[in-house]
Every structure is written in C-alpha cells, then in structure tokens.
C-alpha cells in the first residue's frame, strides 16, 4: 500500500488551516490560504500518477506510450490560476483594511459583530 503522497496532501491542508486560524497578520493569512490550496494540487497530481508513466506529451514519443493522467493536470492548471487571482484580490482587500484600521492583525478589527 502506497499512500504517502496523499498523506502529504492532507498534512499540507491541515497545516494551512492551522496557519489561518492562528494568524496574526493579513499577509500571513493570505499566504496560508494559498498553502491550503497547494494541497489540492498535490492531491490531484498524486491521484493521476501512474507508475512508469511519462508526461502526457507525445512529441517525439510513440503514440500510446504509457503516460500519466492529463485530466488532473489540466484541473491543477485551472486551480493555480484561481489561486493567484484570489490571492491578489484578498491582498488588495486586506491591505485596505490595514490602511483603514491601522493594524495588520485580523483579531484586532472589530468593525462588524453581533
């Protein structure tokens, strides 16, 4: 049984969540969010891996040569784009919060409650 790559994905996801909840800084929090997302790339690619398979690129390779799964790779590509855009948007928002509230600690902002 060989599940280590999956375990690494779970590990990264959980660590990212812990980082978010214990974060004292918006920039740190946003980076932990991308960390959580990176677990999904690892999981996707690990699920699509096939022992002995090459990259799913058949340039100069005989068609039908064993290759790993191209579908999960395309999902991971989409995933990366989502990740970077969300990071940019959250940073832009968080920086403005910092500017207006005068603190970079999410726990110190108490504008909305109840």
């Amino acid at each position, binding site marked *: 049984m060989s599940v280590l790559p999956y375990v690494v994905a779970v590990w990264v996801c959980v660590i990212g969540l812990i980082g978010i*909840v214990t974060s004292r800084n918006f920039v740190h929090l946003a980076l932990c969010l991308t960390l*959580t997302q990176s677990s999904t790339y690892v999981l996707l690619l690990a699920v699509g891996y096939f022992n002995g398979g090459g990259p799913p690129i058949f340039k100069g390779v005989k068609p039908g040569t064993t290759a790993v799964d191209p579908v999960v790779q395309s999902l991971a590509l989409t995933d990366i784009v989502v990740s970077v855009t969300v990071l940019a948007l959250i940073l832009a928002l968080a920086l403005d919060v910092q500017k*207006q509230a005068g603190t970079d600690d999410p726990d110190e902002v108490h504008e909305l409650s109840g």
Partner: protein
Amino acid sequence: MNWLVPLPVAVPLVCAALITATDHVLPRLAKDAIGIAAAAGTLAFAVVLCFESGRHQLVHWFGGWEPRGGLAIGIAFKVDPLGAAMCALAAFVVLLALLYSLTFMEEAAPFFDALVLVCCAALCGFALSADLFNLFVWLELAGVAAFALTGLEIRRIGPLQGAVNFAIVNTLGGYFVLIAVALIYGRTGALNLAQIGRSLASERADGLVVVSLTLVTAGFLCKAAVVPFHFWLADAYAVAPTPVCAVFAGAMTDIGLFGVARVYWTAFSGAVGADAGELLLALGVVTAVLGGVMAFLQRHLKRMLAYSVVCHIGIMLAGVGLLSAKGLAGAATMLVAHGLATAGLFFAGGLLLARERSVDELALRGKGVGRRGLAVLWFAGALALAGPPYIGTFLGHSLIDDAAVGAGRSWTLPFLWLAGACASAALVRAGARIFLGWGASDDPLLTRGPAERPPRRGTRTGLTSVVCATAIACGFVVSLVPGFGQRAEAAATQFVDRTAYAAVVLDGKTVARPPRPPVALEPSSTSTLLYASGAVLVALALAGYGLRPHRSTRPVAAIKAAHSGVVGDYVAWLTVGTALIGGVWALMLH
C-alpha cells in the same frame, strides 16, 4: 433549441468583456444599456429554456465532445426545469439590480455592471452544469465577482472587513469542494455527475464516499450560509451596496443549496441512500431558528435582512433535507418567493437610505411617517416572508409541510414556521418604528451596525421605487399563481431521478414526458392554514413585544459574541462544522 443552452452563460460574459473593453470609449449610459440588454436577454433565454426543457431533453456537449460508450470526455450542460428556473430568477434579479443602480450607484463603480454580469453568468452556469469540476469553476467565478462587489465601498473598514471575511470563508469552502473532486476522480475516474452517479451507485458508502459528500456539502453550504458556516453572510450583506445585496440575497446564496441538491441527487444518492437527509434537516432547523433570532436582535436594516436570509435558507435546507420531490419543490418555490421579496426589501432599504440618510431602525424612528407607498411595500414584503395563507412564501411552506408530514417529520414544522415568523416580526417592528413612529426610541437589546454611506443628495428615486415595487409585488403573489406548485413538483420529480438523468446525459435517451399538471390553485391542508395564520399572529405579537425596550440577557450576549466579525473564528467554526457533518455521516451512513 439546443443552441440556446450556452447562451445564458455566454451572453452576459461577452457583454461584461465588452463593457470593460470599451470602458474608456463609451459613455456610462451606453455601458449601462449593454448591461441591461444582456440581463434582459439572459432572462428571455432562461425563460424559453425553462419551458422547452419540459418538452425536450436538452443536453449540450461543449466542443461537440459527446460521451463515448457512456464515458464523458467533455463538459455538458443538462437543462431541467428547476435549473432553468434558477437561471431565470438570477437573470431577473440582476436585471432589477442593474435598473436600480442606474440612479442609485455613484460613478465610483464603473465596473459594477461588468462584475454583476459575470456573477449572473456564473450563477446560470452553476444551475445548468452537469460536471463536478465545472460546478467548482462557476462557484469560484460567482465568488470572486461577489468579493469584489462587496468591497466596492472602500475607505471604510466595514465593507473591507466584510469582503475579506466573505472571501476567505468562501474560498476555503471552494477548496473543500476541490479536494472532493480529486477524491471522487481517484475513485471513479469521472468528472461528469451522471457518470459519477452510475459509478458510485454500485458501491457501498465507504470513507472516501462519505468524506467526499461531506466536503462537497460543506463547501456549498458555506456559500448558502448554513449554521455554522453562516457568520460571513451578515458581515458581507450589511456592507455591500444595496443593488449588490439584492443579487446576493435573491440568487447567489440559494445557489449553494441548489448545488447540494444537484450533487446529492445526481452523484451520491445511489451510494448513501436517504439517511443523509436527517442531518440536513437538523441543520436546516437550527439555521432557521438562529437566523430568526438574530434577525430580531438587529437594528441595522441590512443586517436584519441578512439574518432573515439565513433564516429562510434554513427553512429551504430543511425542505431539501426531507429528500423528497415534494420537499424540494417546496424549497424551490420558497426560493423564488423569498428571493424576490428579500431583494425588494433591500431595494426599499436603499430608498430609505437615499431619502433619510440612514438604515438604522432607531435612528429612522418616525422619519418615514407619510411615506405611505414605501410603508405599504415594506409591510407587504415583511408579511410575504412570514407566509400568511396564499401569500409570499406560503406555497413553499405548504409543500414542505406536506413533505415533512409524509416523511414522519412533523416535529420540524413548528420550528420552521416560528423561525420565519420571528424574522418577519423583526421587519414588521422596524416598519412600525420607521413608518408609524411607534415604540421606544432606544433599545439596548439591538445591535448597532456599521454606518452606511448614502448616495448623493437629490438622487432621483422614481425608477428605483418602481424596481422595488416590482420585486416585492412578484414575491407577494407567487403563491397565488395557478399551477405553480404542481409544476414545481413535476420539475422536482424530474430533478431527483438519478437514473433518468444519467440516461439522458450519457446515453442520449429520451425519457417519457410526464403528463401536464393542471393549471389550478391547489388548496392547502387545514394544519398548514392554521400554522400560517398562527405565524402571522406570532409575528405581529412579537413585533409589538419588540417595540418596547428590553435589557440584554446573558444568552443573548453569548449568541451575539459568537458572531464576532473575526475571520479566525469563522474559519475555526468552518472546521468544526465540516468535522461535525463528516462525523455524523460517518456514523449514520457507513
């Protein structure tokens, strides 16, 4: 008519791109005209699709990549009446919001139209898609557009913090869905919902299946703001500009519930059976009650409406959780009535803001005396949410009642009716203070919300009033439309049929058309009528009770303190909720 299927997504997207591309060239009026035309077009397409899908099997394989031997290699849209109706509702609310924003929004929002259209396209895509990963893409797209729209009003901490909380919780929810996509692909080698459903139907519910269902459900319930994933919603709604709130409340929040229903019935129902419903039902009841109570504790009108949305989401989730066609039909009809009435109430709140420069119930006390039209609209909307006989959300309640009694779950009914009455009572109380000048001028029980920046003075409110009246009137009369309930039930029956869905999507089969339901108003059962009348009385009594000031008690303070506005807390609750759902399902389904 198959060519019509992609248009509810393609048309708003291409128009959004056009508006951005011509931002520096066209005058604002032209851009607004493009936006309104796009929304109106989308509405028209969606309505046609809704009628066509009752008669024909509409499946559109993008790129022409049809399945080979039952194996999907492309992405499909499968149009069913419920999905198309969801599209139509989204397009209608977006159209109203765009019309409303013509005079209401300031020039500070040049890309408002583009973002709202992108959001509309994403909601339509989500409602029609038959592919799990594609659902994730639309969920994220709707999310990203919504985060940006929430934060429009920068330079104040409130909107920014609301947008950040919204963005972080919903993005995490999206990642949970994605983990589930990877898990399911690892098991079934498929992304198409119908194919996943076929593949899982022959399996027992082991860890992978149960946890995948948990993650998908948690991810979608984040968007739907079900307890304990609901915290972000009030923060975001309280601060987003009024037309944006209307879109969120009218269509975007509900899409999460739609996603749960879609994924459960097409992909998981074969593997996990009907036991999954108990937990959804319980979550629904808790959400409804908490939402109703929290709504009653607010004085900021938008925050009050936000918790009223939470309350009704709970009622709808209970309808879905009954896992029957009737319960789903109840949720769907309530979705329409509630969406329109709430959007209308948000519009009314915006009108108050424009005229009286505030959305605070206590600050507005007596300011609305003499504004008869607005008062009538407000009270009509508030009552429509309580669901008095044959008005507003009544039809939804009635169908859910029947389904609950049929499933032997009639203990839920008092909770659902009372919760709705509680939310409605808050709105009636606010109306009585504002438009009649009744009640005390201060109440320490109520939460003060963030200040709201009103639109420019002298903003013309003619068109906005018409939009507001249209939304509330539509929400008010929905339950009276003859044949609406029967059609919703027929559509729901089609929605929950997993094998028929798979046969249509994967094998291109046509399924026998059910007989046309009669065009008549079905009388409701006596107990439902009693509940409905009782709910209205309770709402009025509670409103009267709320007009006097009350001291805050310890439990109230504790509930309020839990809604802390701190994103770390929200993520902790998100983890708690996911672990709980997973734990309960692990015990029940495994």
